[in-house]
């Protein structure tokens, strides 16, 4: 008998979750963990009601309120009527269908992709979905995690399964040592700038190489988080000792002997040697510099010391068209550098960069410094637990002394659907994941960057190169 065909990690996990596979039909994939929030779930519950059915397995779904919650005075009723209605609807739905909800005020509340990992709900080898494209974040633990639409949320609630076609497999390998001031956000912004905002469409990505291996879990999450910004369905990283150490002792993670037994199983979660990928890309860590975006999709990024490209420098005609439109929106000129550009807001937060390590990185840099006078700085912890930890470590005082505002957890100014919005025409250096037109508020202008680059902007009031300050 022939030896089993070598498999990628993605295939191993996928194959283990196929309930039914039929020619001409999508695979029926069993979902281990389902996260829901107030924005993409109400119509799914509505659907269940219309069909007269219950949730298939209540233990497998966890809810929180994050997208449109205010980040100030969370103990008061939500001022904005529609937001309040959605959060109340989530509350009502969770109660009616018997689901766990980490509501405003609960010690576990936070951005859905931050609380899953920190509570030990996100584990290696799982299938994880949520009605939010940044579900890819969880892939940092070596699982298949991806965003779904509300109809699929309804499928999972009703049947714990969704219908999927297997995507193609891409490996992105990064080797070498990162330079001074270069962090995981720069790695992913660099990759997206190289392959474009649609360069990985149709693929599921595995990140590999020693640069990735040397990253902490939180840094790995930042990378997997933005997989969707190059069009990928998701991105994953094989689990290792760093992963197991992070999970150990977390609230809902398996404990004691169960944990030890699972760690042994998880060690097998890696791509076989000789397994084939549909596409392999390799990057060198030494080539990566602090990055910043200049345009209106995350692929429009440059090294912080580079000039904005001109039409002639872009290969693709569609990119040339986007460039003109983007620069008009951003109020920028092709061929000019971004360094020294005055900015108005700094947003440190979102499922990309609102974990405790991100806050520590910023606090380390700003300690003893003051924010620039005309800049408003928002620091939004990703969860109540991150907030608590930040306060325990005294980061709140460092931020307060620097003139930064540490607020309560939520998605905040990442997506302009709560009270935190960047005003029209204003520039914001943001640690979030999208720089689309109007994303941070109507007519807002976003520069995506790492927490370190955001911290530099907060202190100097300008786009600056962190390497000059450390």
């Amino acid at each position, binding site marked *: 008998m022939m030896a089993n065909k070598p498999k990628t990690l993605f295939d191993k996990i996928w194959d283990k979750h196929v309930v039914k596979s039929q020619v001409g039909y999508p695979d029926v994939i069993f979902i281990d963990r389902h996260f829901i929030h107030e924005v993409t779930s109400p119509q799914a519950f509505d659907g269940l009601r219309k069909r007269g059915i219950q949730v298939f397995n209540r233990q497998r779904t966890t809810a929180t309120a994050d997208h449109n919650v205010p980040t100030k005075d969370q103990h008061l009723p939500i001022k904005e009527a529609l*937001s309040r209605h959605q959060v109340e609807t989530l509350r009502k739905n969770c109660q009616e269908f018997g689901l766990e909800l980490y509501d405003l005020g609960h010690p576990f509340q936070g951005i859905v992709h931050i609380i899953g990992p920190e509570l030990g709900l996100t584990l290696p080898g799982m299938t994880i979905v949520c009605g939010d494209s940044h579900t890819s974040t969880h892939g940092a633990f070596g699982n298949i995690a991806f965003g779904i639409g509300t109809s699929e949320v309804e499928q999972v609630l009703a049947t714990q399964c969704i219908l999927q076609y297997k995507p193609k497999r891409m490996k992105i390998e990064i080797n070498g040592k990162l330079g001074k001031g270069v962090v995981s956000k720069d790695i992913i912004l660099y990759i997206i700038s190289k392959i474009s905002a*649609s360069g990985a469409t149709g693929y599921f990505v595995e990140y590999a190489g020693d640069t990735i291996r040397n990253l902490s879990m939180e840094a790995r999450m930042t990378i997997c988080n933005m997989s969707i910004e190059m*069009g990928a369905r998701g991105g994953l990283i094989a689990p290792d000792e760093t992963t197991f150490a992070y999970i150990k002792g977390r609230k809902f993670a398996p404990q004691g002997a169960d944990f030890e037994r699972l760690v042994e199983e998880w060690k097998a979660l890696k791509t076989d040697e000789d397994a084939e990928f549909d596409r392999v890309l390799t990057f060198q860590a030494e080539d990566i510099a602090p990055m910043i975006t200049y345009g209106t999709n995350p692929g429009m990024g440059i090294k912080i010391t580079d000039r904005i490209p001109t039409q002639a420098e872009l290969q693709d005609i569609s990119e040339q068209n986007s460039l003109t439109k983007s620069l008009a929106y951003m109020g920028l000129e092709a061929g000019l550098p971004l360094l020294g550009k005055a900015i108005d807001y700094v947003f440190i937060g979102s499922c990309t960069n609102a974990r405790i390590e991100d806050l520590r990185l910023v606090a380390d840099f700003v300690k003893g410094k003051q924010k620039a006078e005309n800049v408003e700085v928002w620091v939004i912890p990703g969860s109540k637990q991150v907030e608590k930890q930040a306060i325990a470590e005294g980061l709140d005082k460092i931020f307060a002394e620097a003139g930064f505002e540490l607020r309560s957890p939520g998605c905040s100014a990442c997506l302009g*659907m709560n009270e935190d919005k960047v005003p029209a025409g204003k520039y914001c250096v943001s640690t979030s994941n999208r720089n*689309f037109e109007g994303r941070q508020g109507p007519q807002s202008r976003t520069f995506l960057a790492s927490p370190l680059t955001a911290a530099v902007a907060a202190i100097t009031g300008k786009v600056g190169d962190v390497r000059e300050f450390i």
Partner: protein
Amino acid sequence: MAKDKFVILKSSAVPLPIENVDTDQIIPARFLKATTREGFGENLFRDWRYTPDNQPKDFVLNNSTYSGKILVAGKNFGCGSSREHAAWALHDFGFKVVVSSFFADIFKGNALNNSVLPVVVSESFLQTIFTEIEKNPQTEITVDIENQTISLANGQSETFEINAYKKTCLMNGYDDIDYLLSLNEEIRAFDLVNS
């Protein structure tokens, strides 16, 4: 839930020759707050259609020259946020088909789940469609699901891909949950073994 059956569609089309149209443009985040699937059409492409003080802008949906149940858009339509509201908004506005040379993955799935058919054509055929609409805004385009063809009034046509499963669903007006619910016992058994 049974939905409308969809076999053949003849309609004029609305041209949107812009690439990388993301779902934040299709339906801006601040309109995601409804708790039902209806009513999103009025905010479709809101910020391209209206100024912040609700004055109509120079945008194709405000131009009475163009109408129809088919939207023809540039490459990489529906990129960005996974919000299914983008598909609801297009459906609620009255679009049954979106034609482009490339669609973002999640949007494509969401559209198919909501009786909006994404039709992928070659880049050159897409440009031909834009040219034909420019020549005659009322020109009729025919989308035939059974034969998987998209045809123009001048006789030019192209075939498009649609998987067999979705084709059956669209033509019979049933959805994914109807199918999954029929597998309830198999799923229950799988959950017990793998929990």
